[in-house]
């Protein structure tokens, strides 16, 4: 049996280490996206169906009853308009957290793919950044589709409402990177993710002033909202979308909160990725 031998110049000749140190995160993201592309039709389908379901059932269905009961609307606008920025943020934040944490389980535990990456020049930090970048790429796609649906349903108006997209991505990124870091730090991570979904993501979705303004809740429940990136994104989003009243101080607070969450998130993620790979 004739078997071709391998041509060989040797890694010392063909590999540019400086380039990998620069672009490693992109390589990781590329691999993740290649993986996701296998499910491209599911991803597209979900991105389109999800806004349809929620906008039709809650936005229009509940909206019909709300609008008939509230003569001045909610927060001065129609229920669908009130709801739109919150639904957009909620969907993107949930999507980002899922897409940033699930590969962490897979990479460290099930398939050990992160260890395979780390056997190459790729560093732990680059793996974390790459996974996040791929997650945010998917979420960006979903966000644009969702925004388009909002526009078609008449839930957002005008060019200025396009600012909702970067705002939502900023919020989604801040929470996703923090959850990714925590996920890397925790050993029993599949149990953890289940619990996170049930006791963190779900309550945040329901109690962040998504479906009604947070101020109508009892004080002790409002605290959940304050801690939630979803509430901060929703408040700013309503301000962008229809001019919901918000003070300069509050605006600064919302952005600072999300920025700090991002910075802390990156620190935690980088630290634990490097640590867990070296175990």
């Amino acid at each position, binding site marked *: 049996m004739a078997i071709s031998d391998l041509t060989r110049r040797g890694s010392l000749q063909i590999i540019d280490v400086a380039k990998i140190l620069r672009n490693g995160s992109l390589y990781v993201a590329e691999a993740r996206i290649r993986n996701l592309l296998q499910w491209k039709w*599911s991803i597209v*389908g979900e991105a389109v*169906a999800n806004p349809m*379901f*929620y906008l*039709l*059932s*809650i936005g229009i*269905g*509940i909206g*019909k*009853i*709300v609008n008939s*009961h*509230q003569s001045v609307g*909610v927060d001065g606008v129609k*229920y669908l308009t009130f709801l739109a920025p919150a639904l957009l943020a909620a969907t993107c934040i949930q999507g980002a957290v899922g897409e940033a944490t699930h590969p962490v389980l897979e990479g460290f535990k099930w398939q050990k793919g992160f260890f395979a990456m780390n056997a190459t020049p790729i560093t732990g930090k680059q793996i974390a950044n790459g996974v996040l970048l791929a997650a945010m790429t998917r979420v960006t796609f979903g966000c644009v589709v969702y925004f388009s649906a909002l526009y078609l349903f008449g839930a957002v108006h005008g060019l200025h409402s396009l600012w909702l997209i970067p705002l939502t991505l900023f919020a989604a990124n801040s929470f996703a990177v923090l959850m990714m870091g925590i996920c890397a730090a925790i050993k029993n991570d*599949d*149990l953890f993710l*289940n*619990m996170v979904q*049930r*006791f963190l993501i*779900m*309550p945040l979705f*329901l*109690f962040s002033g998504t*479906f*009604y303004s947070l101020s*109508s*809740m009892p004080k002790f429940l409002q605290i959940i909202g304050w801690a939630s990136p979803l509430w901060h994104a929703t408040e700013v989003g309503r301000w962008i979308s229809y001019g919901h009243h918000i003070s300069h101080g509050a605006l600064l607070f919302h952005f600072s909160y999300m920025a700090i969450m991002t910075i802390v998130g990156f620190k935690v993620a980088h630290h634990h990725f490097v640590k867990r790979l070296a175990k």
Partner: protein
Amino acid sequence: MKTSDAVLIAESLKGRFAEGTYSRRARAVLEHRRIAFKQGHWIVVASGFVEPILYLFSFGYGVGKLVGKIQVTPGHWVTYAQFIAPALLATSAMNGAIYDSTWNVYFRLKYDGTYKAMLATSLGPLDVALGEIGWALFRGLIYATGFTAIVMPLGIIKGWYGLLAIPAAVIIAFAFASIGMLYTTYAKSFAQMDWVNVVMLPLFLFSGSLYPLSIYPDWLRYVIEALPLYHGIQIVRCLSLGIIQWSLLLHVAYFVVMIVVGLTFTTKRMRALFMR
């Protein structure tokens, strides 16, 4: 168990109903579930009824303030929390049953080889199907009881009829588990299993759970009324609001048909898969 006992059991079952399909030992399958449950992440399962409770508090309280009272029958107005609580109970019965009878069963069917091992013993396919579904019912019962126990003291579900919501939730779970398991025995890939989730979300959102169907155009209402979750929500809602009417029997009949169809074909399918 001594060998002679096994022989006696086998002898006694000869010529009986569904010989070779059912050995009246579904309990063994249930036992298997119970042990596996204790070793697994029981907390994930046990905390399952938290989700409808959170939905109830969030929507019932917050959205309730925006929508005011809802008219269920002419002249009968209820609070929004009273309106959605039964729907949430019915939906969680559906969700739990579907999850148990689809994803969990799929893994045992395709990867664990659990059924192959079970069917190599004296157990028949109907034992396995009933055992699995029985487990889903047990879970449905626990969730419904937990939910009712939290909601009743708040006055959201009223009167002794309200307690009937619990057996109603079990019937709903039974029906969905039967159909769910049937679907699973035909599923060939994860992608096909994913369709289950794709169907469940709109089923919840559009089956009259969060607002009365009266806001829909007629044609859409007829579509929804043909779907199973609508009937589940109607049963639980009527019982928990004390609306006792003949149409309840119609809804129950719908589920009886689901159960019979699901069980019959699941059994046939299991036999085809494992006992050729």
